[in-house]
């Protein structure tokens, strides 16, 4: 069908969608009038039950820990799927030089000194901040997911400063695969250990500590957050590494 017909069909469909949306929003309480029993119920008892002052992370890894296991395995599968989809590509390339891949042949200009200095200066602080965020989920706005992404960003800075070979040496694929597997499997294992102790899956069985909000408090929440942090960092590094393979092979050959 022609583009104009497509556009008309889209207009009709979107009009129906918007009508249903507005009908649904008319039934919601207004913005800011959240009445729901679930939120205030959790807020009332989170500190007495888990000794964690970071409520969002407590919800993520304790009250809704089962959903988080699922989300983490989506991440794991996406990284694994990328390796599978792009690996077949590499096998073809080695046999005949394909003219359509341009990333291997472009002229890469040398990085200016200003960028190198600034990027390398920030690698250390970024890694420390990422690690801190991943291990302090129960106290402040922090947690496994954002800590893991920021930790991966520290490695990207090495790549951005022009040190391609160093980046590849700092993140070998075998090590990243192992770290990602430990993170994902560890999360599932923490839950299974609870089952082995004849408690429900992902029950919080580690000691809860005495001071709410201290680093050693809140039992399994801290352990799970750390495992999720390293798994997310490894998954992002694997994803970027797969996309970078072509340019790195070329650089290594010419330098």
């Amino acid at each position: 069908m022609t583009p104009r017909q497509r556009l008309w069909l889209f207009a009709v469909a979107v009009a129906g969608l918007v009508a249903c949306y507005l009908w649904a929003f008319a039934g919601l309480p207004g913005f800011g009038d959240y009445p729901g029993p679930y939120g205030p119920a959790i807020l009332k008892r989170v500190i007495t039950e888990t000794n964690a002052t970071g409520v969002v992370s407590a919800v993520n890894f304790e009250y809704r820990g089962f959903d988080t296991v699922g989300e983490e395995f989506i991440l794991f599968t996406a990284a694994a799927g990328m390796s599978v989809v792009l690996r077949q590509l590499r096998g073809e390339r080695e046999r005949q030089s394909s003219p359509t891949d341009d990333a291997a042949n472009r002229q890469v200009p040398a990085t200016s000194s200003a960028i190198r200095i600034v990027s390398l200066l920030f690698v250390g602080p970024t890694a420390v901040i990422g690690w801190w965020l991943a291990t302090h989920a129960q106290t402040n706005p922090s947690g496994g997911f954002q800590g893991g992404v920021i930790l991966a960003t520290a490695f990207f800075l090495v790549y951005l400063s022009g040190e391609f070979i160093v980046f590849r040496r700092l993140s070998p694929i075998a090590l990243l695969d192992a770290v990602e597997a430990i993170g994902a499997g560890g999360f599932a294992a923490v839950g299974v250990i609870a089952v082995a102790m004849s408690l429900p899956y992902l029950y919080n069985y580690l000691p809860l500590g005495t001071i709410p909000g201290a680093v050693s408090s809140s039992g399994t929440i801290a352990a799970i957050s750390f495992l999720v942090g390293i798994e997310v960092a490894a998954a992002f590094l694997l994803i970027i590494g797969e996309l970078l393979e072509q340019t790195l092979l070329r650089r290594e050959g010419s330098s």
Partner: protein
Amino acid sequence: MTPNAVMDILQVTVLVLVAAGATLVVRTRDRVRLVLVLSVYGMLLAILFFVFQAPDVTLSELAVGAIALPLILLLTIAKVRKPQ
């Protein structure tokens, strides 16, 4: 002005900016420019989440939407560029 009124004005302003940013992202057709506009949109979203009292989501959106996603997009664009 009461704190609630200030909060209201702030939220309305950032919501309008986010809506404008989304329109800009869709209207940009050149690939490299698209990546930059998406990065700015990610930062606007992070500000919106902050004004909605959600610092955790702000951290995630900043790290992902302004850094990791544009990097992944740029690498993909480099792989599919037509030879000049």
